[in-house]
């Protein structure tokens, strides 16, 4: 990430650290990442989008194993990336950690965890955010 990306990342800290999404006050649909307006209710949702902290629990809908990783992730291969359906409804894409790749299964319960996502070389900023791991406390 180039230096110019620091403000862009910084603006997204609430959603990256704490899964802050939002909810349309008109149709009650929940969004992550948060939206400016509800794509269904459109102008009826204006001014009614309420911040909502998602609990970070969900289940794996599908996943893939990455063997050829993008820049900054080469050292972690092979690693799983999954689409996770959160209990509140939104689906998000995230890395699965603390789990052997053979143990990742569709339908498995996962919870969010706080991890380093990437760093801008040896001198740039370090970016943190959510990844998901198998549930710890039932």
């Amino acid at each position, binding site marked *: 990430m180039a230096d110019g990306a620091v403000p862009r990342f910084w603006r997204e800290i609430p959603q990256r650290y704490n899964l802050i999404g939002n909810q349309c006050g008109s149709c009650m649909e929940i969004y992550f990442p948060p939206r400016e307006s509800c794509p269904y209710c459109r102008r009826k949702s204006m001014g009614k989008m309420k911040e909502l902290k998602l609990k970070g629990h969900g289940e794996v809908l599908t996943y893939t194993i990455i063997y050829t990783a993008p820049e900054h992730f080469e*050292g*972690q291969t092979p690693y799983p990336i999954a689409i996770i359906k959160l209990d509140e409804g939104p689906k998000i894409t995230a890395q699965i*950690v*603390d789990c052997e790749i053979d143990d990742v299964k569709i339908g498995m319960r996962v919870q969010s*965890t706080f991890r*380093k996502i990437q760093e801008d070389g040896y001198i740039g900023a*370090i970016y*943190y955010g959510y990844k998901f791991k198998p549930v*710890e*406390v039932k």
Partner: protein
Amino acid sequence: MKEVGIISYGGHIPRLRIRSSDIANAWGKNPETITGGLGVFEKSVPSPDQDVATISVEAARAALARCNIAPKDVGAIYVGSESHPYAVKPTGTIVGEAIGATPILKVADYEFACKAGTAAIQTCMALVKSEMVRYGIAIGADTSQAAPGDALEYAASAGGAAFIIGREKIIANINETCSFTTDTPDFWRREGRKYPAHGGRFTGAPAYFRHIMSNAQNLMNSVNSKPDDYDYAVFHQPNGKFPLRVAKMLGFTPDQVKQGLLCPIIGNTYSGSSMLGLASVLDVAKPGNRIFVTSYGSGAGSDAFDITVTKNIKELPREKAPLVSELIEKKQYIDYSTYAKYRDLLYED
């Protein structure tokens, strides 16, 4: 004197482990000599996406999961570590944001080798007692560095614990604390250097043993107690042997030390060491139990605490976050080459 103590606590230990025997084999050493000499059998290793900020956040979230306090009521966060991810930019800011305690918040990062976390407890105690804050969170965490092939490599591990300090619904009263500090260059890391250096055998008698012995005796003198009065004793754990030896020298038994002694199976978590030991004791503690905690930080100093568990611990839902024993059980072994890759031992500066 107003009561002050621990409201809740939480720990975090990365899942990866490397066996001491694998490290010994990589360097052509005899594994039995190493494990026998140090009393360390395996150690935790951070994955490439874990550092002191992530460990601190997980520990703080575990502590908050066990109690009902609103994150906005946390008025201070102090993170003690010698492996903060940034040389300049406090880890505490990341923790504060990640637990939702910002922006009306006092934050600073501490460094005092392995006792920076207990120094953070003392700071939080003072802020809580003086009513400058309602709750303070003290964290000790490290992903400690060790040069490849150095004796430190067998023990330098990763982990941390967080303690919420407050005045209300105290699960463990901190009756007294005292410190002992001198200028003793037993272990250090110079600015800009990747790995620490140490004085070898000099880290023993004039450093670890002198500071812990003196401080522990001062604490017992000030509260008029003796080793028999305590159910548990936790000492800083640079290896598996020192804490048992210092305990014996002070008159504590191995039974008192056992529950808090984690180094043989997770290594030395530096700033997390005595704090994870205390967390492990609180995992099983009962009302009325008395706990003796003495940390040690090279350079050198020691903080000691006389703690009494209250009846409130029965209402603390300890199961809402992983117990230290559960964090220890969840593990995945890696070999030395993976360890070298993950710990960035192959880097070129």
